[in-house]
């Protein structure tokens, strides 16, 4: 078998929280030994209860935060950001779409510049080339060149989410970690983004780690599904297996609680 693009071995992460003036400080074990690997051109979906450690893991996988312990390998190379500086090559290879797009955009930077910045820092493209690529990317995510000169606050929630996706795609990363990337999008724009991600994956063999609580989206996009519960992996299998026969209790509850959007269930609710 080929070498995985991403391999996580026994990753842990503790947060130390101060307990106020006299309170004892406390340790939160947000990740308790995570193991998995993802192969080129595949999509691994991560699901799990709110607070189970998904975003914490996402920041470690994308080399933003260090793990407390464990080994992270990208294309077979062990990386520990606490010890060694990141190379520009690695920075380009791995991108993230944050759960909270507003917080990740500089309020004083125009959207066009937001998109061009990664190109400016990491490539030798000319100003003209950069502008052209930014305009094209805006169109791909369902916005337009007329948005180039606007600031982040001038966009709707879903538009900002798409800007964050566009920015992450500018450098065509090898590995893209998306943290709830379509959660604020209406179904039609969501479909457009999911189609775009699928196209890019097919064309460029991109690898995705896709965090989502929306099971219908997971079912559409994932090759494999990893279920987390209180900082641990409790189930990790192929999409078809997991949807056909969820094993862990949390996975079963998750599947059973999915709200139904059909006429029958509305009738039932209204008759009560």
């Amino acid at each position: 078998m080929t070498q995985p693009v991403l391999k996580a071995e026994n990753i842990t992460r503790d947060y130390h929280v101060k307990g106020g003036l006299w309170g004892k400080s406390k340790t939160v074990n947000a990740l308790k030994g995570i193991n998995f690997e993802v192969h080129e051109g595949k999509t691994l979906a991560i699901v799990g209860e709110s607070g189970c450690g998904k975003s914490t893991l996402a920041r470690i996988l994308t080399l933003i935060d260090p793990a407390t312990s464990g080994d992270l390998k990208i294309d077979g190379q062990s990386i520990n950001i606490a010890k060694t500086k990141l190379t520009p090559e690695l920075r380009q290879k791995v991108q993230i779409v944050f759960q909270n797009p507003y917080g990740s955009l500089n309020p004083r930077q125009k959207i066009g510049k937001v998109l061009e910045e990664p190109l400016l820092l990491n490539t030798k493209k000319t100003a003209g080339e950069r502008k052209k690529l930014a305009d094209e990317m805006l169109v791909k995510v369902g916005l337009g060149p007329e948005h180039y000169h606007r600031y982040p606050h001038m966009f709707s929630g879903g538009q900002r989410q798409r800007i964050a996706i566009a920015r992450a795609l500018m450098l065509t990363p090898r590995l893209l970690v998306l943290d709830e990337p379509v959660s604020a999008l209406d179904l039609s724009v969501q479909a457009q983004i999911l189609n775009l991600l699928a196209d890019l994956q097919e064309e460029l063999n991109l690898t995705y780690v896709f965090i989502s609580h929306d099971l219908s989206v997971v079912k559409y996009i994932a090759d494999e599904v990893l279920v987390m519960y209180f900082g641990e992996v409790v189930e990790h299998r192929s999409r078809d297996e997991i949807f056909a026969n969820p094993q862990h209790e949390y996975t079963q509850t998750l599947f059973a609680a999915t709200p139904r959007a059909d006429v029958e269930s509305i009738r039932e609710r209204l008759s009560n």
Partner: protein
Amino acid sequence: MSLLEIENLRVEFDTSSGVFRALDGVSYSVDPGEVLAIVGESGSGKSVAMLALMGLLPKTAKVSADKLLFNGQDLKTLNPKQRRKLIGSEIAMIFQEPIASLNPCFNVGFQLNEALKTHTDLGKAARRDRCLELLNDVGIPDPKSRLKSYPHQMSGGQCQRVMIAMAIACSPKLLIADEPTTALDVTIQRQILELLMNLQQQTKMALIMITHDMGVVAQTADRVIVQYKGKLMEEAPVLDLFESPKNPYTKALLSALPENATGDRLPTVADFVQA
């Protein structure tokens, strides 16, 4: 009498590429105890309409309306002081981006306590109990230790739930919930929706629920409004909307559910509506 009445609401923004009309003559009303769901394309003006009504848009926005009434009171002529009094106690809003609307400098307990101090007559001990009760209601485990957490120490869904706790703290007459459960998995989503529906039934609170999740609409709404490019496309009781959607955009919305994917492509609005 309606609790909220909006007639011919328009919002325009000055942008570098000219005037942009975000909202183009939208009218609707909400009764006490009613759940109105607003669905519509990203960028169609759902949030802008709510911010206009609360007087929270930036100065670059030009707002006009024939009517903007809450409980018979004209929202257009309120001075800032009257508005502050109304907002938080009688009208509360759960914002679409929770972390952006919590104050990063104060812990959760402090922020909840301030809301209760400003808008209720509860004493110190009662406020503390109420804080814990609210956090428990929104499904935050170990509420007591959470009181000391700062927003950046919480997960996305935890912030969203604290925001919800703040919004319902003062038993508002109208709760505007802008995508309130986007960051939550379905198990917690269900708990939050039940909480909101209970409040609505017990206190006759009216609820405006902005959501793109048709499952949430199906499970909560009495009536649904569909918005597209700043205009109101369709308004119908919830059952009618799902049973016989009239507008092409509504049909597109319902068929874009990923579970309706045929083959490996998802249908988008462009497949239904001519631009």
